[in-house]
């Protein structure tokens, strides 16, 4: 068997074929996503404990969040998940130009999310709704309102870092797509980034109602 002639460009030496290579990448990615769920899980647990201890303070504090901005951000992130999924589909049917555009829209929407988050954060920093000892706002009834904002900033902050990480990955994918690295035979990096991006969306799907809607 002529090994050199049969060998696809992107097949690493230790895999039998492209199929096995892709399945292995996906397995690794899903294990990584498992650790991501558990990382955020610790924060969700903190949320549950403090909400159970201080239900009234949570209810009063959550009214300080801007539901309109939260809703717009939810729509933005869901749309970006959709464009990410469509970017993968376009690469499956070998439409590289379309993939490029969908990746570009995804990047733009992620940027929009961060800009809206920036305005929300700036407002909170301005009025002193900050975590722990930095808290200086005086308009919320109930004990320990600084705990609400500690949890809010930790959870949305860690989520925001994930959005920024996702933007870096998407920018890298656009660079690689431009360089014609991907094809319907090999587009694993786009698919893996897609999985990561959908998980970031999934986490926001829970953060949004827990903070903005029901406090």
């Amino acid at each position, binding site marked *: 068997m002529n090994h050199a002639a049969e060998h696809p460009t992107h097949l690493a030496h230790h895999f039998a074929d492209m*199929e096995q290579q892709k399945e292995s990448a996906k397995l690794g990615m*899903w294990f990584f996503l*498992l650790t991501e769920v558990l990382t955020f899980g610790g924060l969700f647990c903190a949320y549950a404990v403090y909400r*159970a201890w201080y239900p009234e303070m949570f209810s009063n504090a959550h009214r300080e969040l801007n*539901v309109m901005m939260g809703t717009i951000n939810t729509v933005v992130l869901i749309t970006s998940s959709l464009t990410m999924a469509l970017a993968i*589909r376009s690469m499956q049917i070998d439409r590289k130009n379309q993939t490029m555009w969908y990746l570009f829209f995804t990047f733009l929407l992620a940027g929009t999310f961060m800009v809206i988050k920036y305005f929300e954060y700036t407002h909170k920093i301005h009025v002193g709704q900050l975590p722990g000892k930095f808290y200086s706002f005086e308009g919320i009834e109930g004990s320990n309102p*600084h705990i609400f904002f500690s949890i809010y900033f930790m959870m949305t902050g860690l989520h925001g870092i994930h959005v920024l990480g996702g933007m870096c990955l998407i920018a890298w994918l656009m660079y690689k797509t431009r360089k014609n690295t991907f094809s319907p*035979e090999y587009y694993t990096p786009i698919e893996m980034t897609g999985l990561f991006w959908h998980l970031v969306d*999934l986490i926001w799907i829970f953060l949004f109602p827990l903070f903005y809607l029901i406090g």
Partner: protein
Amino acid sequence: MSTETSSKHQLHVLPVSTYLGVGAALLVLTGITVWVAQFHFGEWNLIVAMAVAVTKAILVALIFMHLLWDNKVYMVIFLSSILFLGIFIVLTMFDTLRRDDIYDYVDKPINPNAIIYQIDSTKTPAASDSTAVPPGPAH
């Protein structure tokens, strides 16, 4: 490129309408959950909001993340993360909410000298009553 390898890659390509349909469903569910949150049903607000969020999460995981058609081992990995997250939160809640069923619950700060408590007692009027003390669970 051999024909042998390309025939092995039966790529599972979904129609665009499926993606658009899921995207539209997610947006409609977002609208519903924001609309319902205006009304106050007590505990039901939490239940409705979480039911909507779980529905959205299932749509994203099954279709956008392709779990419905992929090797089921990925679904098992994902579900096991949810399972252990559930164990983590439920057991913690049993502890923190039912601790005083076993012995008398005495409220006291873990670290009375913690800087937050000192700042709180001077700055936050509502917190002047024993800020340092986590309230016992509601009885």
